């Protein structure tokens, strides 16, 4: 997992001040990549390739508001998570956003730690979800033998990651024969 590309965030707000602050905080204080736009109407084009893991959007914007954007993103089904930024006290909208499929909401003004924590939660969730999807894929394999092969190669791959690529350690921890480990490791590559 380590060598995978950093997760990507898209921030949407018509006001560039907020975007600049978000850009700064994400790029300086988290390992994630961020892109921004101050034109919500540009978002459908930007998310065509589904390269974002998370969209952070303001609620009130000219052209399309945050809830409409959320609905669009959810209906498109590109898998982006959504955090909506609302003004203080707009409980109903936050509620609507959560019901509409947002991962979280955050009220302005907020501490930098709040957004970092919210983003981390999303990313943790995305990682867990990816892993779960991989596991489910294995369960779907037929016949049993091919599921077993996939499982074993995943198992060894993870163990290698954990042991920093040290084969002796992998042999010891797995209790498998050297030949089997080498075979599986080759398969994983």
């Amino acid at each position, binding site marked *: 997992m380590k060598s995978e590309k950093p997760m990507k965030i898209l921030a949407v707000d018509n006001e*560039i001040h907020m*975007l600049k602050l978000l850009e700064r905080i994400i790029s300086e204080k988290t390992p994630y990549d961020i892109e921004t*736009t101050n034109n919500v109407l540009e978002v459908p084009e930007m998310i065509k390739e589904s390269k974002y893991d998370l969209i952070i959007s303001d609620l009130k914007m000219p052209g399309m508001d945050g809830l409409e954007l959320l609905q669009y993103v959810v209906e498109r089904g590109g898998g982006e998570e959504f955090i909506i930024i609302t003004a203080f006290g707009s409980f109903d909208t936050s509620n609507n956003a959560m019901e509409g499929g947002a991962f979280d909401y955050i009220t302005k*003004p907020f501490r930098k730690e709040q957004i970092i924590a919210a983003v981390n939660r999303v990313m943790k969730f995305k990682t867990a979800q990816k892993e779960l999807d991989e596991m489910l894929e294995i369960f779907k394999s037929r016949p049993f033998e091919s599921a077993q092969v996939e499982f074993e190669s995943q198992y060894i791959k993870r163990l290698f990651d954990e042991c920093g690529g040290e084969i002796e350690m992998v042999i010891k921890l797995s209790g498998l024969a050297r030949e089997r480990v080498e075979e599986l490791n080759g398969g994983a590559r």
Partner: protein
Amino acid sequence: MNWFKKLIQRDQTYPSELFDSLQLKFKHFLDLLDQNNRVLKTISDMEEKLREEFLFDMNYVTSSLEDVRSGVLKMIDCMIVLGGDDYKKLQSRYKWIDDEIELILPGSRGIVPDELTINFTDLGKNRAWSVGSKNAHLGELKASLKLPVPDGFAITAWAYKIFLEHNDLQARITDLIESVDITHYDDLARISGQIQSIVMSAKVPDIIIEDINLTLSQIIESDDVKRFSMRSSAIGEDTLFSFAGQYRTYLNVRVEDIIDRYRLVVASKFTPKAIYYFLSHSFSELDLAMSVGCVEMIDAHSAGVVYTRNPVVADDNCLIISSIFGLGRYLVDGLLTPDEIKIDRDSGQVQETHIATKPVQLALDKNSGTIEIPVPIDLQNEISISPEQIVELTKFALQIEEYYGTPQDLEWVINREGDLKILQTRPLRIIETDTSSSLPPDTNLERIAEGGETVCPGAAHGRIFHVTSPENLISVPRGTILVVPHSFPGLVTVMERVSAMIVEVGGVASHMATLAREYGLPTITGMKITEKLKQGSDATVDANNCVIYKGFAEEIIKSRKNKGGLFEDMPIIQLLKRILDKISPLTLINPTSSKFVIDNCITLHDITRFSHQKAMSEMFRSAGELQGNSEFTHQLRTKIPLKVNVMLIGNQAKDYLGDKWIEDSNIPSAPMAAFWSGILEQKWPSTHSQSQDDKFSTIPTKTNSSRKKISFEESSFAVISREYMVISLHLGYHFTSVEAMCTDIAGKNYIRMQHKGGGATRDRRILRVHVIETILSNLGFTNASRGDFLDTSVGYQDKETLLEKLKLLGRMIMCTKQLDMALTNETLAKWHSDDIMRKLGIEQHKENTIDYFD
């Protein structure tokens, strides 16, 4: 106070009316306290947003500012009710401070009525809310600094409003703007075109035309053939957000064309780039009024810009002059690379001179407008400003910088006779860079371009994207390195989405450069664009060193990361900081000082502080004036040998009408009851009984019942309600006042104590203040002391906690009553503070003791 005296006289016949008026006054007093509390809370909220690195938007800034403004204004209104017309001076003081805030965030008050036109000789910087800062500063330079500024006048924002209203334009414009898609240049251009044509077809009302003609006649003699330049001076231009070059300027305008050009400048508020700029900064278009400057046209031999500091290298002690032949427009529009002269700010010596090739110049056309003409071959590579002119310009520039106290960006012109004139001044944005991180990094990557000048430092990685005209801006992909031959309109619309910008022609002093710094966009100008900068190729820009590398130079990107506070350089953060500078510092501290006067209020916090203090004095004064009227004032019946007059406010006051005594066992005020129980528990100190402090320690006989006014200084006095108390204790030669609000809402609650003076020498009195500070900081109070004056408070806690603290405060006041006499040195002071805390059962926190006695 005449009002009051009248009431007292009338009181003989209408006691209940007097009672009601008094209660009304008390109501205003409580309102004032409430507003004071709100304002202070908003201020500390704003401070917290900066300190704790919050993310907030423009709406937060404007709404907080609005809260503070309205709270302070309400306090002033209350003060006038409480203390009379003398306090009306607070209104002008408020306006003086608020004008300064308006300079920082223009338009936040809306368009305020003013004259339609104003001669520069009658203008000053504090009128920027009416004429825009460009006009206001020109007036300031001309009228106050007596610098050579051309004649001229401003057509105000109020005239703009009248122009729009006269033609019913605003609603139509607002509708159109709301329909715009701001990042599509063609859509912006379409809407912009519609709005501009609406403006151009509108009629300038006669009232404005007549006013313009009248002011013109002050400037032009009858046979004069003066020409003018018509320049935008929008409210909000040239402040924290520069709007540099967003609006139009018309040069060499004939008198008969002034009205038409006025309309054109107003219409330029709606150019695509201007609409983009204010929408993307969340400015409301409604608030940004257009004032126009009408300035005598100077036939330029040469012209240019001065930066009084290097905007990208802060510790470089240089002033930079950019200069070209002819009119300055070709320089600020970035169409010519100017001569650049760097001058040492201290010695005035020229440090560096770069002479550019200047093939053309912009000159005045015979009829009107301008014409491009060639620069004679033999002059093209000559410097466009003489050494004497450099000296004179440097002198003026530094004088202006000193006057404003911040680095300036000036525009200047030299006429055919060689006379220097200043055309504009505005604050210069300085980009703080850490020079250690600016060294050329060690990398093996191939350099594909180098040279030119840093417009805005920084580094970025992306793909090269060439654009040669505004129409192609729409296709600029996000995150690319934008390469353009020169600056052109609309560049600002992509500054938010590109990662770096390379401009082949132009200097560091163009409008494009100002905007690039505002956006924090790494930008290089004057860089020769070579074939190696291929469209779509991967590159890294090092704007500090003016080098472009092939591929991704990670080490360069890393080394250029922001090193200061996380958000420090962000415009919105700076905006809040600058507004807070006018709001939050407290400079009026000591109410017993002769400097505690309205004229010394320099922040809004000072006004609230002053009003709060004076409101209490006014309450005491009113109470004092009613001393003789036993119906309204009561005395506290207590074992403590202290005469305390008590006045009740609020609903329960009626219940006590006519009663002489209030029992100390049954004080109808929760805070006062708690406080007094502390005093009773500690008892009146019996030692040092022969000291002068006992002067008032016996109940005075009949002296108070006469007509003689009992002032604040002579008697102990309490004004109380169920949830509030303010008591001024006169314990001999020092005065202590304690104010407390204890309600069910923690956010409203506070205790505040002020203490000053004493019978002992000054150093002993100061030691006593230190003892009190030590004890109170262990009780959770926040202290501010100056000499022997102490101002201390604690707040935002629940009622029970504060009542407990009040009781301890009462005990502590008894313990320290005559302490100053005994405090001969710091060791003793430390011993006493420890001793008192032990007696009172206050836990000692280590960090709270070191400050005072070590």
